[in-house]
């Protein structure tokens, strides 16, 4: 267990270094930038949460790193996994990379699981195909991983089909499957969004356990609630760019960017005054076709000034944290 948040930075090793990454989709209406120049590092052993609403580019960012963009999408810039460039490298190289070095867990576990294959076959397929393990070794590892993600009676589950499992069990299996080749990085893209709230709590426990074992995790989510208690650092995205990057404690207790603060306030909470109005953000995020001028959040920002409407603020680092705002909130500000 890590004692202080952000101490992953102290241990030093960068697992994934994203630098100036852009994602462009060619559409009938012309090119659309879904990710507009993102730079961030994922450090060994940390859980980095990437938080944003729909259209923020949070999922496309990591799909681009994995070479999984839709056919009309292009990635520009750089993303290096342990030094190896992922952007623009050959498709074949990427395929083996994303199967082995990076594990991916997505929202709907049924997308990861093949309905007509037994759980055990799916778990072991990848490592057996590549001759990385013998069959008994693969079975042993699969059972061990099923146990570690909290599947009771893994021997029985091993021989079952996905439809014989509940939604929560399937997501656990999907996590185990992503871990089979021993990846250096697990990317979990909205891993609990499709799950019921009690099941979500269990899957978050699994991720927390894996983080405790030292696995590097990127948690992509729209829900700041699931981030607290799991993430070491949080990157908040808005309109294709990172607007704030700081430790989880900093983001939750003293957000610098007005969007982060407003997002925190808008979450319905169980400790709020019952029946109270929710603080909401007027307007909506810019559409993908919209031409941006100035700070993309300015039209919705309570603190926007003239300058905000004219020039887009860059992500700037100060006191070990970053925000992209012309008028960041003072450090001690709390929602």
């Amino acid at each position: 267990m890590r004692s202080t948040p952000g101490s992953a930075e102290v241990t030093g090793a960068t697992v994934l270094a994203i630098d100036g990454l852009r994602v462009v989709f060619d559409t009938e209406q012309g090119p659309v930038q879904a990710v507009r120049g993102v730079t961030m590092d994922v450090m060994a052993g940390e859980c980095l949460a990437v938080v944003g609403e729909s259209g923020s580019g949070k999922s496309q960012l990591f799909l681009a790193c994995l070479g999984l963009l839709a056919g009309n999408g292009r990635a520009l810039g750089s993303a290096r996994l342990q030094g190896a460039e992922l952007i623009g490298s050959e498709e074949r190289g990427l395929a083996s990379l994303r199967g082995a070095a990076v594990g991916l867990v997505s929202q709907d576990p049924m997308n990861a699981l093949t309905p007509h294959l037994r759980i055990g076959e799916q778990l072991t397929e990848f490592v057996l195909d590549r001759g990385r393990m013998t069959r008994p070794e693969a079975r042993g590892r699969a059972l061990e991983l099923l146990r570690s993600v909290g599947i009771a009676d893994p021997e029985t589950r091993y021989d079952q089909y996905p439809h014989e499992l509940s939604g929560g069990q399937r997501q656990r299996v999907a996590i185990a499957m992503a871990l089979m080749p021993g990846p250096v990085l697990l990317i979990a893209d909205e891993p609990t969004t499709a799950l019921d709230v009690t099941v979500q709590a269990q899957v978050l426990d699994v991720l927390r356990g894996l983080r405790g074992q030292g696995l590097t995790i990127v948690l992509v989510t729209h829900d700041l609630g699931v981030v607290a208690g799991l993430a070491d650092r949080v990157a908040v995205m808005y309109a294709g760019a990172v607007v704030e990057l700081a430790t989880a404690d900093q983001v939750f207790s003293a957000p610098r960017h007005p969007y982060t603060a407003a997002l925190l306030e808008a979450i319905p909470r169980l400790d709020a005054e019952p029946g109270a109005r929710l603080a909401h953000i007027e307007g909506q995020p810019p559409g993908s076709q919209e031409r941006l001028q100035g700070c993309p959040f300015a039209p919705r920002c309570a603190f926007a000034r003239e300058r905000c409407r004219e020039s887009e603020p860059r992500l700037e680092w100060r006191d070990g944290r970053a925000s992209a705002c012309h008028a960041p909130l003072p450090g001690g500000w709390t929602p």
Partner: protein
Amino acid sequence: MSAPLLEVRGLHVEYAGSGILRSRRGTVHALRGVNLELHAGRSLGVVGESGCGKSSLARVALGLVAPSAGEVRWDGWTVDPGDHVRMRRMRRELQVVFQDPFGSLDPRMTAGASVEEALEALEGLTDATAVRSRVAAAFDSVGLERGLASRYPHELSGGQCQRVAIARATVVRPRLLICDEAVSALDVSVQAQIVNLLADLSRQQGIGLLFISHNLAVVRHLCDEVVVLYLGRVVERATREALFATPRHPYTQALLAAVPVPDPRVASRRATAAVAEEGSPGTQPSAGCAFAPRCPHALDACFGRPPGLEAAGGGSVVSCHRWRELAGIA
């Protein structure tokens, strides 16, 4: 007190198993003897996880699904699909907003035309001037710029589409609005706008809300009273204040404990998941309390016979053999 606006008595809903599963699993019991009532102008939250029957409840109330047993009363009248005159009136007075804002609007109709259509179909209003002014007023009341009336759903954001759906539902001045996960698909910042809008509409226009949701925190902001469903049964019903301050049923407690808290200091102190995994598909149901297989407090007796609904003070009811003991009440 006057008769409830919506009253549900001993409601059972069953669906025949479909396809190859029909022979194996047979009938699916979506609701098993549900009672509830909702008075005019009040807001009732119905919470529970997938498969608890909350959407079936909405469908029965709307007359889209016939109950296999029990009855639904609308304003004192036992709903009878054969009575076309009363059904027509009920359809105007009882409106619904669904989860998917894009799916619930006709993609070939502009936002304005969608709202107009509701007026024409349910009120028979055809006078162009009257229609126009009612549509404009509906747009105003849901915070939509009137200029958006000429847009098609695909030209609108999710939040705007949901406002159009609410305008369409409220333009006919309903007495009750059923919201079936109406804010679940929206982004947090927009979800808050729609929750506040529903609260305003309910307060200002006296519209009752039947708010079906899996999100207890949203329900807490919006509803006067809450019903918790588990596998087709009411396990607890209480006022908002009582339910959130002193949840009696272990399932309600588990649901509350599982709501993510957006605060790392609290979240890291929290105990891990409070209940056991949900059963695998096809698991034999318990002969006793349906929640017993997952309940951290279950004793042998809980598996033996199902608990009835008991009054738990302050108008609350709870269905648990052990609630008194767990609450420290002798």
